[in-house]
């Protein structure tokens, strides 16, 4: 990557970090009966092992983790650049809640979870937004925000961990990145902008980039993520909490509490997320199916209460 006249040039994409699996069909065909038999056996294999998902909830396991995706270093750089723009917009919409003690605490809890994910290349940043609205947001590239209003409704550290883990999951699973095709490819609005500098398509590329930012903002504030992405983020949050030693039922308790709150404070949250009854159902199911031990996991209620003392979290 290099810079020219203050604008960023993205190098041509390098080959994926992992090679695609070799296909038995890649080195020429088989003839007659051999080819037919081979084809038949592979067709059976593919039918058995590649059945289409019958429902998002049943098949989230197949989607868990980015382990099998091919992502290049350039893709990740694009993700961070794009996410940075979204994060700046979120901070333009709500002010940053400037409290060093709280900033440090939220970063410690968030990074305790982030260390137990498969995205070590991402530097995660956590911050509190100064609004009474109850919500949390994730921008690609590692930017996570929780509102002051949400913190006011939490009762222990495991609840905060659960909320942050949900947002971290949106990032590790690259939900917005996939939705908007933010990659080091010709179709990407980020590369498109960089590639077109000074050229005839520059203005169009700028518009495309701007529109991609707007789409991401729409996902966060108006339309919400796809339902299957929310399911995956909820279920992954349970597992992230378990892997980090936090009580995974913290998120359950928090949602149960929010379920009784209606009004302006939860307007965006309710509009952009599935109903709590559904969310609670799949959270509890995941805890049970995965054998998550909630009885001995930590809630750190005292540490949470101690940190929140002297912090103005309610209006």
């Amino acid at each position, binding site marked *: 990557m290099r810079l020219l006249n203050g604008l960023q040039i993205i190098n041509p994409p390098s080959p994926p970090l992992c090679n695609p*699996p070799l296909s038995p069909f890649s080195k020429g065909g088989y003839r007659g009966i051999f080819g037919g038999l081979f084809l038949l056996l592979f067709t059976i294999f593919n039918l058995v092992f590649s059945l289409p998902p019958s429902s998002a909830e049943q098949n989230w396991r197949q989607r868990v983790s980015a382990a099998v995706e091919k992502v290049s270093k350039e893709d990740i750089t694009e993700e961070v650049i794009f996410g940075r723009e979204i994060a700046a917009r979120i901070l333009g919409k709500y002010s940053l809640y400037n409290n060093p003690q709280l900033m440090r605490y939220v970063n410690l809890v968030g990074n305790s979870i982030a260390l137990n994910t*498969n995205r070590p290349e991402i530097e995660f940043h956590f911050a509190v937004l100064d609004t009474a609205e109850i919500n949390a947001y994730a921008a690609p590239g590692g930017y996570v925000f929780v509102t002051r209003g949400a913190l006011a409704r939490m009762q222990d550290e495991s609840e905060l961990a659960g909320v942050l883990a949900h947002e971290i999951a949106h990032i590790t699973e690259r939900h917005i990145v996939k939705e908007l095709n933010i990659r080091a490819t010709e179709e990407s609005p980020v590369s498109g902008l960089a590639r077109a500098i000074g050229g005839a398509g520059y203005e169009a590329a700028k518009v495309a980039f701007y529109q991609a930012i707007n789409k991401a903002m729409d996902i966060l504030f108006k339309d919400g993520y796809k339902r299957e992405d929310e399911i995956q983020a909820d279920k992954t949050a349970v597992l992230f909490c378990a892997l980090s030693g936090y009580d995974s039922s913290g998120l359950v308790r928090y949602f149960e509490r929010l379920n009784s709150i209606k009004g302006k404070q939860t307007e965006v949250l309710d509009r952009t997320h599935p109903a709590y009854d559904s969310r609670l159902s799949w959270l509890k199911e995941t805890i049970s199916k995965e054998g998550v031990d909630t009885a001995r996991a930590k809630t750190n209620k005292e540490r949470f209460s101690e940190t929140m003392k002297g912090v103005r979290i309610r209006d």
Partner: protein
Amino acid sequence: MARRISLLTIPFLILLCCTSLIAQDVYYVQSLKAKVMSTPSFKSEVLGEVSKGYRFVSTGKEGNWVKVRYNSKDGYVSALLLSNHPPIERQALITGEESEIKESVRRRVSTFASAAAARGLTQEDRKRLSREEEADYESLEEIESFSLSTEEIIRFMEESKK
């Protein structure tokens, strides 16, 4: 002769298909540590713990768990902690040019936003542009300038276990 070849080839093809079913994949631990469990469940016995970068050869997946060989035993590691490439370090992504990149991004947004308003957008888009153009890079840089060492985070996690 041709018949003999065909008789030999059929079992070979079947064998080839079978081996594809138990194909071995390589996974690398991406998290700071990863526990190897005896069964695909958080409640099962912990066989051991490995560090970031550890390489596993896998023989399959069970739900959210990757089946691996560990100390001559079958074990399971959460798929959420693995990828099929070695961990990528952060400095490999954005090097010493970081500050220039931040500066360029700031300039770029301001430039494209005004240009976008001038052409290529609907009236609705333009209205929205004036409403939502505001982006707070100062606060963003404040957030980015705050960093914790891995040791601090580990200490925080250890404290909570007490």
